[in-house]
């Protein structure tokens, strides 16, 4: 561990207070650098964000750790408290974990960007270590011995010389009266007893017994159910409606239209919403509202071009949202047209133009991928109870700190009068970083002056989304007469943003390099989707590198390793944002674990890919066969470098899940439009990977190192697409340039 002492680069302070009725509570606040997730659209402040959490120790020796970040399946409810418990030397069996509510002092409490463990690693260690030291001091005073002679194990303090021992709980009240020590020594990584050792999900039993955990499950006395009827197509808006038939339906209490943002409202980076004029139906039960919606008589009209006011760090800008009713076929044509126009220069090394002119061979390939819907298993929903004085909101959400200022503005309430509680989330994948559905719920509650839960049906969730953008990229490589790679060019575009990460591999490994980007504006709303942009780049770039290796007569792993050797030893250009050594290490590890090139694996069509994103490195080897006449990924080998792994079995689960997610989206993922209307409305049309299509084995290996954790939710996902594409080529003998690689559903399946 590079820095075993508490870090002073961070303005960090801890506060101890006694609990009424006895015990110690440690509050901690710190202001860590938040640079990593601070890229363009996040809307986060540039420099420091205050975060805070607490540990509670009660006299019965139960330790309660409040988990700051909401859990959407990445298991932070378990892994973050493990970090505290490790340094505290707590008995994990007697640790109780609770989800923290949103607290304005807690910062964004953001779940996303593979950020939770990375962000909390040091602060949570410091908090645990400090609490432990205070307990040791309290025991030392009680026993009148030097603090250095006190040892701890599983929530018990020991003084070996005198044979004395005491529980943490028994000295917690005294510890709370002591001044908070500074620079408490942290444990050596080799001494970890909890971190690095698999612990069961703390919510496992609740989940398998059907306990109320999710937003959909939340209920309050007098709560009504609301649903939103949104325009049937992007580019449409509400003209008029007749609700008389709906209001006659049983249980229906209210139908009204609602404007989400008034004209000129300054949207923050995560205030994206699909439609502004909404038709709301409120009633007593979910089914009654679902049913009554069918009786609505709404007239929709073309919205025409509209304006959004976006408030960013560079000030206020007005963005024109085109009113076109978009169709996928036209979008593809338009992308082709834009791809041939000049684009924005993103990076240039050497003289790529001359290199291409002098090339003996040029290989050029274009890749495209569709919009993707997040399709969280739990559709969007949120509870709201808004009064003139305050607002309570409860539900599933990834980033309470981003929506709270919006709610304060829209409800005209001070931020501290808005309480946001976070439930467990039935998936997130980026979708729940966009809190417009809280605003919708809050405005509905305000209007009806009652507690309400806004529920999206699956159809609402799928057709009213904040999708992964539609992307394309053309890759070009120049080879000399000896088949050496002399120039590399990527020109990427998308609707409505381009995907190119100009400083990523193979930038830095090729003498002449050019990266360009272009974008087409659209009224189809887009946002973060598990490893934004990377989830397309890894598919396209890793397929292209595979094809290049083949053209050069090289093994695809050796070819990548050669490029990475060059990037490490004689890097080209500046700002290469990856570590070539760590990148190469995951490729070497997956090569070894998969038995790459070994004759016993010949029966498989194998594809390899590797990628770096969100600070971590991932490589996969995908083994494909034909099953029932369809390509089937039977086995996958994955090698990951995400630094220290907190909870190995849960981390393995997450990588396995990312692999299945990647295979599913590579084969089946796709959202298309005709005249602005989404063509897939439910799982009978939007094909999701199922049990019989998921691999029999996913073998996950982590690089063993002492690097502070760098994040895991996203990095294993993108390279799956590339590895699948490359294996599919081996299986079918032809390259696939267009996602999805499989077929969508035509008719509902019967189960």
């Amino acid at each position, binding site marked *: 561990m590079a820095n075993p002492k508490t870090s002073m680069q961070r303005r960090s302070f801890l506060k101890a207070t006694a609990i009424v009725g006895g015990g110690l509570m440690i509050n901690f606040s710190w202001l860590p650098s938040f640079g990593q997730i601070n890229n363009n659209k996040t809307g986060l402040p540039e420099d420091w964000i205050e975060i805070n959490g607490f540990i509670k120790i009660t006299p019965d020796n139960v330790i309660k750790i409040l988990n700051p970040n909401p859990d959407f399946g990445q298991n932070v409810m378990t892994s973050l408290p493990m970090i505290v418990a490790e340094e505290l030397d707590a008995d994990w069996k007697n640790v109780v974990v609770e989800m923290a509510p949103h607290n304005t002092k807690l910062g964004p409490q953001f779940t996303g960007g593979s950020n939770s463990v990375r962000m909390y690693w040091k602060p949570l260690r410091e908090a645990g270590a400090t609490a432990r030291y205070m307990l040791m001091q309290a025991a030392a005073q009680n026993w009148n011995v030097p603090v250095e002679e006190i040892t701890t194990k599983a929530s018990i303090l020991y003084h070996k010389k005198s044979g004395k021992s005491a529980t943490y709980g028994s000295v917690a009240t005294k510890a709370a009266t002591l001044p908070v020590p500074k620079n408490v020594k942290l444990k050596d990584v080799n001494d970890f007893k909890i971190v690095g050792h*698999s612990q069961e999900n703390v919510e496992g039993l609740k989940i*398998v017994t059907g306990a109320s955990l999710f937003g959909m499950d939340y209920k309050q006395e007098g709560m009504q159910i609301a649903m939103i009827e949104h325009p049937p197509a992007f580019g449409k808006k509400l003209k008029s409606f007749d609700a008389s038939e709906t209001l006659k339906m*049983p249980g229906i209490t209210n139908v009204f239209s609602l404007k989400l943002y008034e004209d000129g409202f300054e949207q923050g980076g995560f205030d994206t919403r699909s439609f502004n004029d909404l038709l709301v139906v409120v009633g007593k039960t979910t089914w009654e509202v679902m049913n009554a919606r069918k009786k609505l008589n709404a007239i929709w009209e073309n919205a025409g071009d509209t304006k959004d006011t976006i408030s960013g760090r560079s000030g206020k800008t007005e963005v024109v949202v085109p009113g076109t009713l978009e169709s996928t076929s036209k979008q593809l044509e338009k992308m082709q047209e834009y791809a041939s126009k000049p684009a924005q220069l993103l990076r240039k090394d050497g003289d790529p133009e001359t290199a291409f002119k002098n090339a003996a061979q040029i290989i050029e390939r274009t890749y495209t991928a569709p919009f993707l819907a997040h399709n969280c298993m739990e559709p969007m929903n949120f509870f709201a109870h808004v009064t003139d004085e305050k607002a309570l909101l409860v539900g599933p959400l990834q980033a309470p700190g981003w929506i709270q200022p919006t709610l304060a503005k829209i409800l005209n309430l001070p931020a501290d009068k808005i309480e946001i509680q976070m439930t467990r989330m039935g998936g997130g*994948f980026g979708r729940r970083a966009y809190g417009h559905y809280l605003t919708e719920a809050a405005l509905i509650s305000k209007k009806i002056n009652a507690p309400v839960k806004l529920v999206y049906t699956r159809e609402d969730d799928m057709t009213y989304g904040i999708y992964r953008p539609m992307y394309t990229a053309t890759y070009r490589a120049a080879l000399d007469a000896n088949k050496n790679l002399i120039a590399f060019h990527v020109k990427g575009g998308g609707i409505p943003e381009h995907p190119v990460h100009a400083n990523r591999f193979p930038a830095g490994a090729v003498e002449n390099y050019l990266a360009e980007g272009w974008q087409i504006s659209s009224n189809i709303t887009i946002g973060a989707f598990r490893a934004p942009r990377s989830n397309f780049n890894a598919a396209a770039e890793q397929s292209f590198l595979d094809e290049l290796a083949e053209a050069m007569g090289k093994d695809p792993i050796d070819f990548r390793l050669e490029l990475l050797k060059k990037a490490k030893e004689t890097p080209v250009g500046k700002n290469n944002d990856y570590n070539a050594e760590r990148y190469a290490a995951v490729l070497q590890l997956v090569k070894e674990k998969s038995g790459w090139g070994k004759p016993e694996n010949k029966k498989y069509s194998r594809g390899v890919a590797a990628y770096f994103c969100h600070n971590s490195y991932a490589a996969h080897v995908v083994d494909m066969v034909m099953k029932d006449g369809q390509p089937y990924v039977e086995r996958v080998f994955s090698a990951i470098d995400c630094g220290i792994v907190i909870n190995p079995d849960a981390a393995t689960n997450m990588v396995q899940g990312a692999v299945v997610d990647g295979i599913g989206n590579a084969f089946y993922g796709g959202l298309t439009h005709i005249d602005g209307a989404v063509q897939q409305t439910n799982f009978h049309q939007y094909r999701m990977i199922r049990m019989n299509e998921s691999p029999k084995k996913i073998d996950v290996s982590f690089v063993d190192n002492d690097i502070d954790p760098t994040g895991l939710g996203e990095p294993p996902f993108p390279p799956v697409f590339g590895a699948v594409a490359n294996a599919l080529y081996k299986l079918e003998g032809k390259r696939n340039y267009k996602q999805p690689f499989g077929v969508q559903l035509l008719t509902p399946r019967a189960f």
Partner: protein
Amino acid sequence: MITLNINKKTYDVDVDPETPLLWVLRDNLNLVGAKYGCGLAQCGACVVHLNGEAVRSCVTKVSRAVGQKVVTIEGLSEKGDHPLQKAWIELDVVQCGYCQAGQIMSAAVLLRENKNPTDADIDDAMAGNICRCGTYLRIRHAIKLAAENQRKGK
């Protein structure tokens, strides 16, 4: 008034007989273990047992459950110790957890009918349950572990 037998208890509930069982469970009876995922019998998050058979409660009218025995995840075992629930915990199957009650309820019927399910049996029985987090491998292993434990009388 409709009378239902759910998890060995009797409930009287005043709902339209056309209402899907799912919404009666969730909205009227506070049994929220069965989940809404699609409303179209495509995802399996809402699976409950009707006289021991797995049904998709989102498309099962409550009237169909009258005079029948309904079991939901809350009633699968008294202490959360059904062999599948234990295997799910032991193998740390869940990620977000939203689909898992439906997965377990589908698997419970398979396990009752087939004491030693193969991969193909599991594929067939579980193809109607979507897991967006991609925990299928662990679900498969957990079903096999539960079957093994059941055979051993654990």
